[in-house]
Each structure stands twice: as C-alpha cells, then as structure tokens.
C-alpha cells in the first residue's frame, strides 16, 4: 500500500530530473506522475479515487496549481473506467486508451485554464501539447505495463507452486 506512494514520489522526482535535460519545446515531455496514477487506479477498485485524489493533490503542490490535478485525476480515472468497461483488452485498445489518457489530461487542463482566462486559446498550442506528450510517455506506459504483467505472472507461478 505504502509502496504506491513511494513510487509516486519517485515518478515526480524522475519527471523533475528529466525536465531539465529536455528543452521546453521538445517532443519528449514527461507525464510520469499522471500516467503512473492512472495505471494504478486501473488495478484497484476500492482505493481508486482516494489514491488519484492524493496523487493529484501532491502534483498540485509541486506545480502550484491549486486543486486542478486533485480534481482532474479522479475525474479522468472515472472516465477511463467507464471506457474500459465497454472495451476488450488487447493491443489496439491499449493504444486507444493511451491516446485518450493524454488527450483527456491536456484537454481538461487547457479547458479549465481558458475558462478562468489564465491562457488564451490557440489550437496549435493545444495540438502541440498532445504531440509533445506522446513519444516518451508511450514508452513509459509500455514499460509500466510490461513490469505489471511480469509481476502478475511471477505471483501467479509462485501461488501455483505453493499449492502443488
């Protein structure tokens, strides 16, 4: 249980560390904290919204964005769960889910910031924000998925050997 929060802090640390090495206009902008939170919320049913809310709150503290992510993380987690219920699990749906994850986050953040007149609308900037988050984050989510699958298989074989 606690390991989730430790990994969450590690993801934030990694995000900060990487942000220095990539230029601000690069196509490799990390969204590790957000993706890890969404990945974790898929696994559990009970603690889903509590964890995503706390993760959002911590992310807000880091970025000075009062309650923005604390509100968006559980909302996107809810949307994702609804979509998952209506989809089979295969490689194509994984890709679709990934694009939706990035799109939802960028879209809702941009929407809120435009509504409160913090930013002016620019379609180009919005599209660039999505494009800049695809490459690196796709690799990250793929790696996260592989690690989870490996752990699941390992746990399964361990249980099997215990019963036999």
């Amino acid at each position, binding site marked *: 249980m606690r390991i989730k929060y430790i990994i969450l802090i590690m993801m934030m*640390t990694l995000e900060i*560390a990487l942000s220095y090495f990539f230029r601000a206009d690069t196509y490799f902008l990390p969204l590790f904290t957000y993706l890890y939170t969404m990945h974790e919320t898929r696994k559990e049913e009970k603690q889903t919204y509590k964890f995503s809310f706390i993760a959002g709150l911590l992310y807000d503290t880091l970025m000075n964005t009062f309650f923005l992510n604390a509100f968006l993380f559980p909302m996107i987690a809810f949307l994702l769960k609804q979509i998952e219920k209506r989809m089979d699990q295969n490689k194509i749906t994984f890709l679709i889910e990934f694009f939706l994850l990035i799109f939802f986050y960028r879209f809702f953040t941009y929407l809120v910031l435009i*509504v409160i007149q913090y930013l002016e609308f620019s379609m180009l900037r919005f599209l660039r924000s999505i494009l800049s988050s695809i490459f690196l984050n796709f690799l990250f989510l793929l790696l996260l998925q592989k690690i989870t699958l490996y752990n699941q298989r390992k746990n399964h074989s361990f249980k099997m050997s215990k019963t036999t």
Partner: protein
Amino acid sequence: MKKRLDLKYFVVAIFITSIFFLGMMSFFLKEEKNFTFVDKLFKDSVHYLGYTVQLPFRKIHAFYDRIREYQDLYEKYEALQEEVEKTDFMTSKYNESLKVIEELESMLDLNATLMESEYLNATIISRNLGYWYDKVTIDKGSRSGVEIGSAVITSDGLIGRVISTSYTTSDVKLLTSNDINQKISVKMKTENNYVYGILTSYDEEKRVFTVEGISGNIEIPTSAEVTTTGLGDAFPSGILIGTVSKITKDHFDLARTVEVTSKVDFNGISYVTILKRKNK
C-alpha cells in the same frame, strides 16, 4: 418522481461545485502565492531529490562542455583581447556615471532607485512542468533572500520574475507566458530619446514579443534596444528585453505595433541571475 428530483439536485450540486472550483482556481492561479510550511517542505524535498538525480549527468555534461571550450580557446582569447582594450574606457565612464547618480541621489534625498539591485546566481532545476504554465524552478529560495516579484535575467536579457518561493527553491514565471496580468512597461532607444510602450504578448510561432500603446510619433529604428522602464515597480529600469525587429502600422496609420526579438533561448535556459532590490 423522487428519482427525478434527486437527479435535479445532483446536476445543481455539480454546477455549483464547478463554479466554485473555477472561481477558486482563477483566484489561486493568478495570485502570487505564499506556501504553507508543509507545501514548502514537500516541494523542496521533491525538487532536491530531482536535482540529486540530475547531478551526475550535469557533471558529465559540464565536463564535455569544458572540453569543447578548450578546443577554441585561442580564438576566444583573441576576441577577448580586443574587448579588454575597450573595457578600460568603459569602466572609467561607468564609474563616473555611478558617481553622478550617487550625487544626484543625495541631492534629491532618494533612498533607493529602481536601478539598484544585488545579484544572486541560480541554477534551473526543472523547466516547463505541466506544459501550460511557462515556469522554471531555480535552486535558490527565501533562505538565500529571494523575494516574490524579483526580476530574473540571463546574460542575454530579462527572462521573467519570481512568483513563489519556498525555503530552497523558487518558481520563475517566464516572459513568454501570455498572462493577462503581466503587462510590462518598456522603452525603445532612438537616436536621442526613448519611445515608451507596453509589452503585451509573445508570439510562439515567430518567437517575438509584441509592444503596443507606443507613445509619440518619433521614428523607431529597427534593431533599437528594448529595455524595461522601471515604471510600475515590477522590474528595475534598464534591463534588456531584446531588439526591435519589425514595426507595423494599423489601417488608419495611427497605432504602431513593434515586434521585439529576444536573444534569450527561453526553452533551454540553464543558469539565471536574480536581481534583488537593494534597500539602503
């Protein structure tokens, strides 16, 4: 009937919550913020962990930079030699100007002018977290005397100002953010005079700033230096922002808009200097 009533309450509750949330967001995002103790502690810890992860890679990067610098050392030496010859003349002129300013200040009984600042160097820890906010985080905070509102520069000119500080880190809002609250008064140097205007926005595509509300009809030469005026108490006077690259007039030939190109590479800043207001 009861179900329909519940749904109505639910929709009204969501509507009110959304308005409340947006109102709070609007207030907190636009305001310069003082953190609580817990916020500061968490923010500093995570940033310092990130900085520690960066350190070995920074060292390697610095090592390769040094090797690259050694390769064209002689050309640099020759170029600097020419500069040194000019420096003596410039230094004496500068000292003379300082003396005159000091005398004038004492005559007028001024405590602090907007030109006077102390310099504090800092390193960027993270840049553009969250994509939309055009912010960088630096490794100096309130413990080093950084204050909210301090101007931040690089050797190429002004880059922004400090919007929040914790103990060992501070957030700097870049000039490139088209924040509606951030209108900066600027002046453009003509032959014998200054033309004043307001820096209003940044064009991401062309990578130029726009200056509007230009006073007077004095001709502005292209490549004229654009600096801060010191009016409005936000930035000290005379900090370079960029040079004039294009002047356009509206359809009625009345208002002028000036495009200003900055030498600063806002996407790849690594080291900055904070200007701390000097209080006598």
